[in-house]
């Protein structure tokens, strides 16, 4: 009897074990990282709202908190600092605030 192109029971069992093991173990994606980044980005927006900061001040503040390449900053759509590379930041987590006529978006990478 020809059985070409059909899984044998052994192959099907082995495959289902592999799939089961892959699904049984949780992925390494850290959802808590997102919370930390959101909290830090939110801090920046809250303080900037209270102090009416200029763009250069904002850049300085974000750099103090997150390091030179650890953050992204956009004011009214204009990119002042690019999105940080790697980690969860790569998924474009941005917190946004509207201050008067300005819309500020900020993304803080994980230190």
């Amino acid at each position, binding site marked *: 009897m020809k059985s070409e192109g059909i899984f044998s029971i052994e192959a099907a069992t082995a495959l289902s074990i592999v799939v089961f093991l892959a699904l049984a173990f*949780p992925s*390494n994606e850290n959802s*808590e990282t997102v919370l*930390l980044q959101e909290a*830090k980005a939110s*801090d920046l927006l*809250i*303080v900037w709202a*209270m102090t009416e900061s200029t763009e250069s001040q904002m850049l300085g503040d974000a750099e103090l*908190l997150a390091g030179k390449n650890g953050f992204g900053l956009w004011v009214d759509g204009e990119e002042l600092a690019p999105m940080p590379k790697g980690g969860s930041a790569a998924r474009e987590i941005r917190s946004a605030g509207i201050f008067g006529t300005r819309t500020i978006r900020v993304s803080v990478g994980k230190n």
Partner: protein
Amino acid sequence: MSSWKSIRITDRGFMFSLDAVIASMLLLFAFYTLIISVSSFAGQGSAQEEYVEKEMLALAVSEAIVKNRNMENPSTGAAYFNSEKMRVEQNVIDPALVSKATPMEFGKYELSAIYERNRAGKKYFFEQERENCIVMERFVLMKELLERKTIIGVEVCEK
């Protein structure tokens, strides 16, 4: 007359064929590898879980410090109270209150240090020497005569 015939087990390669030996070794090796990788995965998961637990505690403590105000225990709240607006201002720190903060225990972890960091450097309000610490930094406004933007750092360590 009895017709017993002596048969050696290796005569027909039943038990000790090379194929069977190799297959058995491969099987044992596969089991060994599986056990090692599962135990390593479990160990990693446990360490990761502990790290996440510590990280979440650090986030919660830092959140409490910058959002709440607790006159009796500033380690759980050192935010500034605006008497004109009659409310506690989030992310605005009362320097007099935060300087009174002390170490605090949270089960197997401990709030071991709080510091302020800015371009001039780092100043500790209190510090305890501990190992396996995690640091959480928050951007705040320090409410002094001249308000200044600064960073408050919280260190949570294992006891």
